[in-house]
């Protein structure tokens, strides 16, 4: 049967050859990599899908990245900074009590659907949110509203707090007045949040017709939030299509925009959920930019000619303790020892993107309220050892939780950071028991309910106010931290009650000092999240709040 040999060989060779040809023949299509002129579509690789096109129903950055291009809030932040500047309101002010906020609105602004922007439109929006009903009152939908304004006109769940929002009145065509029941440190920051961007009254009417359903075992987003068409804002881009199969949202330049018009006609956000995937897509010329660049890739990309601007830091990574969970942590010396044991400089130097900083308190230095006089805990393994010995906890064991497969702006590679912290702690004689968990929901669940002795978490500020940082954690007893310390709680709460901005800054400083003395957790670093752009792109100003305005983008 040797006869078959040659035929068989030829058969297989042909098959292999065919495959190779098939593989190689895709080369003749233009990738648009270096040829920028005349390109009318900018594709940005996003790390995740938006959940909704209506920002008021969402609470995640991926949603806001998209909606910010189409919808604008009353107050915006200066490009590339955290300072609040006029948005749809040219000017704003509050009375002495901090309860009445007056907005002088921009004139001549038009919505994508042709509606006119005015005070009535602003109030229609705030009243719409205030009057949300049924499923919309779930924090799955109105997370930010509840966070900033508490409850609703008619709370359907008795456990919801009373609303802090009182009313909105259109004093005249271009003046809106919003009243709240009590002064809050969240104001005026809240007015700058993406969820509170203004929609056209016409679209609001349509939106009101659709109810979010939350029956059976899941929550269903209303149809209008999943398909462009109804929603209309005032931004430089308008929503055009959402192709979920392609994970691709397309926006189109809005010709009637009041400000500087978008330079590129089409703006596309495509989801590529892995760091490697995004990097390779940029390198391959499939996309023109992407967010959350892995620190290790920054140099590689720069050397290859890509642009990797670094944002200013506006976040914090900390090592948190749950004191209730491990009684040893209730001892101040133990917490101090751990703070001394960690070589934060080394972590920042080797792992964080350039521009990263060692943190010495629970807010970055760009926030008003940052104190120069907090207690410092320098890296000192011997001191850590002796402190532990003094506390009688030389054999300290920690169940240390850390998240897997996640990248946060403040924490590019959690496992690496954990490994380094662990290695440092072990040098000081602390036994570390690693507890890796999937970020969502396992890890978040475990840390929030205080199931770990120690853990790594962080925060990116919503707006430039100290309370948005320390108020999040230390205003009251929280299972995550598992301690009750009135000195800390009082200091933090007192600061939020001060209406006078200068007085509030001083109060924040005092609060920071109190916190760092008590050291409920170890602030580790402020990490600048990197964003990358193609060689032929004029990138937008990068924002510490990750609020890039893509209307600024153009091709070289």
């Amino acid at each position, binding site marked *: 049967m040797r006869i078959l040999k040659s035929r068989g060989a030829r058969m297989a060779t042909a098959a292999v050859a065919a495959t190779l040809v098939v593989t190689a023949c895709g080369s003749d299509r233009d990738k648009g990599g270096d040829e920028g002129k005349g390109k009318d579509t900018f594709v940005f690789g996003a790390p995740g899908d938006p959940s909704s096109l209506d920002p008021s129903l969402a609470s995640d950055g991926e949603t806001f990245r998209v909606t910010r291009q189409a919808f604008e809030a009353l107050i915006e932040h200066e490009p590339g900074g955290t300072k609040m500047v006029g948005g749809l309101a040219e000017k704003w002010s509050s009375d002495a009590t901090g309860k009445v906020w007056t907005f002088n609105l921009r004139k001549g602004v038009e919505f994508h659907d042709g509606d006119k922007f005015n005070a009535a439109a602003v109030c229609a929006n705030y009243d719409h949110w205030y009057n949300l009903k049924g499923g919309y009152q779930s924090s799955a939908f109105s997370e930010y509203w509840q966070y900033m304004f508490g409850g609703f006109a008619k709370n359907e769940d008795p456990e919801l707090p009373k609303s802090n929002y009182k009313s909105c009145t259109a004093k005249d065509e271009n003046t809106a007045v919003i009243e709240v029941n009590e002064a809050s440190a969240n104001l005026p920051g809240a007015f700058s949040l993406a969820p509170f961007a203004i929609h056209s009254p016409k679209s609001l009417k349509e939106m009101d017709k659709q109810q979010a359903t939350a029956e059976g075992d899941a929550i269903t987003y209303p149809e209008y939030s999943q398909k462009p068409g109804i929603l209309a804002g005032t931004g430089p881009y308008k929503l055009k299509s959402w192709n979920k199969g392609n994970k691709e949202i397309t926006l189109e330049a809005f010709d009637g925009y009041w400000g500087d018009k978008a330079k590129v006609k089409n703006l596309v956000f495509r989801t590529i959920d892995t760091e490697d995937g995004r990097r390779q897509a940029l390198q391959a010329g499939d996309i023109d930019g992407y967010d959350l660049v892995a620190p290790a890739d920054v140099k590689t990309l720069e050397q290859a000619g890509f642009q990797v601007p670094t944002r200013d830091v506006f976040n914090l990574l900390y090592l948190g303790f749950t004191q209730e969970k491990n009684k040893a942590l209730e001892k101040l010396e133990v917490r101090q020892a751990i703070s001394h044991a960690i070589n934060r400089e080394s972590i920042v*130097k*080797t792992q*964080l993107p350039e521009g990263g900083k060692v943190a010495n308190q629970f807010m970055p230095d760009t926030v008003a309220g940052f104190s120069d006089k907090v207690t410092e805990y320098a890296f000192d393994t011997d001191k850590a050892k002796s402190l532990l010995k003094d506390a009688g906890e030389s054999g300290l064991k920690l169940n240390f939780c850390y998240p897997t497969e996640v990248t946060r702006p403040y924490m590019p590679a959690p496992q*690496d950071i954990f490994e380094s912290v662990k*290695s440092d702690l072990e040098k000081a004689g602390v036994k570390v028991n690693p507890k890796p*968990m999937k970020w969502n929901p396992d890890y978040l669940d475990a840390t929030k309910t205080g199931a770990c002795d120690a853990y790594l978490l962080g925060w990116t500020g919503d707006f430039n106010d100290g309370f948005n940082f320390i108020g999040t954690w230390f205003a009251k007893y929280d299972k995550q931290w598992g301690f009750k310390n009135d000195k800390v709680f009082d200091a933090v709460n007192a600061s939020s009650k001060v209406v006078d901005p200068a007085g509030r800054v001083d109060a924040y400083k005092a609060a920071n000092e109190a916190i760092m003395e008590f050291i409920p957790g170890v602030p580790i670093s402020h990490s600048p999240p990197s964003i990358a752009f193609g060689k032929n792109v004029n990138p937008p100003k990068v924002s510490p709040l990750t609020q890039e305005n893509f209307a600024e983008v153009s091709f070289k």
Partner: protein
Amino acid sequence: MSLVTPNTSKIDRLAELTATHESSSGNSLWREAWGRLRRSKAGVIGAVVIAVFVVLAVVGPWFAPHNPAAQIWRDEVLINKGEFVGPRGENWFGLDHLGRDQFSRFLVGARQTLLVGVVSMLIGLVIGAIIGGVSGAAATLGGRNGKRFDTFVMRVTDIMLALPSLLLAVSIAAVLGQSLTTVMIAVGVVQIPIFARLLRGSMLAQGNKEYVLAARSLGIRKRRIVMTNILPNSLSPVIVQATLSLATAIIEAAALSYLGLGSPDQSAPEWGAMLTQAQRFFDNAPMMSVYPAVGIIITALGFTLLGEAMREALDPKLRG
């Protein structure tokens, strides 16, 4: 008829000549299989690879030059600048991304990899063989209920086989939390239906063999036939599968690591975990990925080649 008196010298001479003549009838099935295995190039290559791997795994860690978990040279590796440290006198395989000695980690990794492979294979083998054995016995011993039981068990394993094994493993890991044990259980459980089906199928096939029918007709009790004849004769495909499973287990463990469900203990990572960590830096430090990747590929290949060669050696149909 010629009357030849058989004399002793004649008989001796005959016995001598008969003995020198090569005769194949005396060899047992297993010895024949062993012979075929030894002649198979693939089998020999596989066996050599496995031998090297096992020696590396058992003895290697004692010769690890450094503590695999200690970040001794942490400040020399600048992830954020893409600066990595390649092989050098002190660190034969260079440093990993956190400044640990990659060679020491590789050696310890070999042991962990072997451990994961063997334990998860055993989990699959033991549980699968029990299920398959009972089911096969029930089917062979017959009876209405036996058949029903068998059908039920097989329906369950069918469903298990239909489910993507990785998703099954992921959901197991989700329940048990992350640990090396979880990896071994998750990877092992996935193998259960494979072993169960295999043993049962093999037992049923043996049950139809003539020698079993013959034993039955001799009035030997069915239970005894199952234990003494059917079961031992059905084991060869299971043994082959066990060898192949070792390869699958190693790869599957690597996949779990990639999905972030691997062992959290980075002081003693298995190669899959090392690869997962290293592949992030593939552009800057490709060698960091290459060591564990080559380790996994070669080892898995070794087990697979040996398994395939064993299958062939044991399969009477493929002889000749």
